[in-house]
């Protein structure tokens, strides 16, 4: 690969942002149109990745490597593997939808809004591509600023509190990670090269310290229980596009961090910390689900449901076998698609009603039947109905965790009941029941809004019915990762001490 495709992907949106900044702010249509074009071109630029990616190797692809600050051995080092590639694709897709959903809902400082969005996109892609820890940290922090502004400027009435909380929470985490990075730099032979750092072994005590340092940053982002309370506030106050990016991409970075750093660099600490991580995940699943039953605010409910769903993701990652980790990564994509879609839909509703109170709704299916159909599909995907993408991820995670610890799957599976409970209850209170006459003259979905949903609808069914198209990208990389952590490319899969011998079972199995 001679074409620096990844750099192009990172800096094209930045360039777009700069061009937008130079545009006169009077012409709103032109600004929106340009933002849309930039995001579309960016998405088209990511498509070659999908086709050119070699699924048979775990080695980094599309690599770009240049010395940057040679004094500290800091490099400009980019590359993708089977774990990160899908997130780049998802990021560029989601950004288009964010531009579309903001078409009318953003009335204030329109130019600046889209500039923020594009800068955010560049930084997000940078996070997924960076293979130098220092570079990673820069993108990681750079991402924080546009997001902070999105909430703080274009957010709801309580936006300052929410933005500050978001900023402080993530900053505390990030600083602890920075400490970890510097320690690792000094211990790992003065390099920030993530792959080289993973090659070395460190004393367990140091590993554990670093593990918790990284944990602080990643757990806040996921967010894991009990450091999740910034998420509901951030989501409720953020504008629709902010919520969508937050749900679809930003909170995936925490889980991605575990996969990229904690697991391969600190394998012994990871295996030593499996139990606490699993317990935190289980608490998140159940706690996040139950708290949804008590929500009166539409966006808060979906925000808390993210806590529960991300609990499944971390459970999958720390169950450390092929199915659970593969399912976990797929579920990150799935959650991005589904919750992104839910926040898009809620954004469209909010734009019309200006209320987030669930009790203000009722019977909306009569007034907005097309939206009701879309929302139902997203709800079903969220509760893991087979045939939708949500099922595949949850099924693989639960199956993988069952293979190592059946009781964990038993507790986690209760999330399926609670999930159906709060989501269908929510759906009923908004779309079913007697019509609230307040919304008698509510505007139906227009073509732009329907188009916004379509890519996500396609993804829900595509992944739900043909998940191998996605899973095949990650197989080799996941196997490599598991080998790094557990010494076995299948991971920890022998927790079950009964059933047929593999020798007798395999020839018969399909």
């Amino acid at each position: 690969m001679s074409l620096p495709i990844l750099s192009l992907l990172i800096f094209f949106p930045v360039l777009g942002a700069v061009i937008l900044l130079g545009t006169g702010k009077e012409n709103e249509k032109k600004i929106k149109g340009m933002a849309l074009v930039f995001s579309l071109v960016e998405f088209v630029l990511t498509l070659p990745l999908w086709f050119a990616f070699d699924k048979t190797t775990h080695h980094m692809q599309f690599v770009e490597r240049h010395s940057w600050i040679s004094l500290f051995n800091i490099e400009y080092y980019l590359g993708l593997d089977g774990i990160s590639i899908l997130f780049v694709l998802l990021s560029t897709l989601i950004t288009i939808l964010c531009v579309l959903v903001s078409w009318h809902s953003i009335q204030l400082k329109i130019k600046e809004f889209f500039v923020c969005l594009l800068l955010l996109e560049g930084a997000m892609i940078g996070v997924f591509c960076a293979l130098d820890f220092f570079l990673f940290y820069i993108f990681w922090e750079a991402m924080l600023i546009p997001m902070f502004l999105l909430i703080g400027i274009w957010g709801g009435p309580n936006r300052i509190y929410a933005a500050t909380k978001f900023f402080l929470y993530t900053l505390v985490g990030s600083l602890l990670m920075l400490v970890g990075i510097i320690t690792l730099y000094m211990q790992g032979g003065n390099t920030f090269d993530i792959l080289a750092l993973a090659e070395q072994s460190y004393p367990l005590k140091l590993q554990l310290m670093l593990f918790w340092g990284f944990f602080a940053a990643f757990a806040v982002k996921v967010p894991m229980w009990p450091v999740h309370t910034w998420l509901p506030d951030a989501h409720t106050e953020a504008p629709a596009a902010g919520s969508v990016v937050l749900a679809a991409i930003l909170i995936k970075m925490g889980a991605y961090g575990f996969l990229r750093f904690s697991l391969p660099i600190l394998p012994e600490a990871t295996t030593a910390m499996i139990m606490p991580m699993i317990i935190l995940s289980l608490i998140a699943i159940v706690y996040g689900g139950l708290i949804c039953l008590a929500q009166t605010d539409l966006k808060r409910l979906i925000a808390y449901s993210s806590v529960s769903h991300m609990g499944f993701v971390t459970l999958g990652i720390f169950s450390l076998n092929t199915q659970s980790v593969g399912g976990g990564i797929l579920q990150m994509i799935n959650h991005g698609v589904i919750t992104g879609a839910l926040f898009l839909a809620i954004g469209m509703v909010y734009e019309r009603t200006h209320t987030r109170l669930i009790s203000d709704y009722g019977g909306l299916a009569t007034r907005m039947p097309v939206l009701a159909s879309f929302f139902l599909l997203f709800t079903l995907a969220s509760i893991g109905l087979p045939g939708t993408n949500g099922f595949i991820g949850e099924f693989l995670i639960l199956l993988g965790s069952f293979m190592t610890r059946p009781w964990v799957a038993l507790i986690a599976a209760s999330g399926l009941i609670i999930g159906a409970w709060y989501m269908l209850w929510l759906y009923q209170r908004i779309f079913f029941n007697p019509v609230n006459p307040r919304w008698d003259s509510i505007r139906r979905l227009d073509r732009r809004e329907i188009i916004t949903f379509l890519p996500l609808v396609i993804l829900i069914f595509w992944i739900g019915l043909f998940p191998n198209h996605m899973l095949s990208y990650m197989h080799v990389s996941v196997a490599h990762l598991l080998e790094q952590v557990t010494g076995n490319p299948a991971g920890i899969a022998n927790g079950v001490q009964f059933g047929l011998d593999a020798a007798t079972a395999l020839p018969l199995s399909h």
Partner: protein
Amino acid sequence: MPTYLLLIPFLPLFSFVVTFLVGKRLGVHSHWLPIITVLISFSCAIYAFFQVKNGYRVNTDLYTWISSGAMTVSVGFLLDELTSVMLIVVTSVSALVHIYSVSYMKEEAGYYRFFSYLSLFTFSMLMLVLGNNFLQLFFGWEAVGLSSYLLIGFYYNKMAAADAGKKAFIVNRFGDFGFILGLFLIYASFGTLHYEPVFANVAQIATQTFTMLGVTFNLPTAIALLLFCGAIGKSAQLPLHVWLPDAMEGPTPVSALIHAATMVTAGVFLVARCNPIFALSMTALNVITIVGSITCLFAATIALTQTDIKRVVAYSTISQLAYMFIACGVGAYSAGVFHLFTHAYFKALLFLGCGSIILGMHHEQDVKYMGGLKKYMPITYWTFLLASLSISGVPGFAGFFSKDEILAMAFVSPVGAGKFAWFIGTIVAGMTAFYSFRLFFLIFHGKFRGTAEQQHHLKESPKTITIPLILLAIGAVGAGAFGVPAVLGGNANWSHFLEPVLGHPQAHPSHFTEIILMIISVGAGALGIFLAWKMYINNPGLPQKIQDRFPLLYRLSLHKYYVDEIYGFLIVKPMNSFSRNFILNFFDIGLIDTIVNGIPKLIGQLSGTIRKVQNGLVSHYLAYMGGGIVFIIFLIYARS
């Protein structure tokens, strides 16, 4: 993969997609595509049946659905004796309900939506029965649940309907919770989720055990009971039966198709399909028999006093499904599937009869306001009578053959609870005859008790309604012909046909025993009909007297043993209040957020001087950065 087999499920899927997307524009013509496709599916199902009868089998994968490491599951079809029977049940009842709905739903807004959901349901149910692996079964299982949810809540602006749909889905999720764990345990035991290798190797796990949280289970028992959890939910057995009566909020054709003839029998199908696993566990078989027996009696006693005609039939369905589970529990799977088959026709007929009556009565469902409908609705009357005779087990009718086979097999079964099941089953046979004819007499005989307005409009339903009734009546009477026992001069075709899949019951009653048992159960049925006649025709004051004599029993039955209230009190309310008061208010807001908001405040106070200089939020960041740097220095020192 033969094309006709692919057409069976995928034509209804095609019909769903098209009707859902463009049905609105088709308006009153939107029923054509669903009807035509389901009729083609039905023809293909008949063809498939004869193919199987000639010894032809299919077990082919369509494509690989999920592949992750060693785990691979396909979408694939299995056509064998059991499948072929289910295909006929599903497509035939579905086709008749489609046709029936043309008149029944004529005036409704969302006509196209109704037909698209019917197609979705038909597709889902066919995928459920056609799958060659557990995960596809689960796909169909959840998809029929979705169709049921949509159709129960068809009148979604009505709170009760929306509630009922949601309840059905969530209660079923409790069952699915066990079901999916059962799937995991199967995968953990066999390394595959496909039927063929699982059933072929099932003997190898017979004596293995499985330990979880310190408790050791016999492996086949654990798998069987977990799967049975799913069956309890879908087939509305105790303690997860509560959703089915509420599901009557859905349009009546839906009640006939989904909540009587097909979907609710999926649990029975599951147990029958997995019979090699269940056969390994006496414990599981006993549990199924006992749950079946108790549900059978429980639901029948509730049906005795209900006055909403659809509720009576709904409780009757729960009770009849319980008979099928008794059959499976005592190892007589083919008897269970036989009852599934006959029940599909006579129960669909009862429901569609109810629908015809409800239409005639202008959406009045309470039997208190009916009476004497015989002369206004002769076809409905006669077909309803045939269905009632069939469910009451009157000799010669379909229900007689299937029910008596179950009772006879239960009586001689080596399963411990068999005799108990026989005893309960025989009592319930009497109750069934009683409540069926109570309903029958109250609807069709005596004086009309509704308004003059209603009476004025009473007339027989149109042909698209009466023709399906007549066709179903043929099934309700004649479906038994496939399984006439040897003692009555038949040759037990039914169980021979299904034997390759369902195996052979361990014990057979002698002809003498069979005759005696038959006499007893027919006697019970006759007594039930007689009592119904006595109480509702001969001496109409009698029910009130009995009511006054046993007020407690009456109230228990009328209020369905207060199970809904108990669940509300023990599960729903505590869950909601625990979530609100403890998790949200105490823990999330009270504890975590107090700490989170407290720390910056504290730091802000400590760094008061900086705050004065820098004003605003920046001070917080500085404080944190300072803390971080101190930490780094500390680390470096600690290291050196």
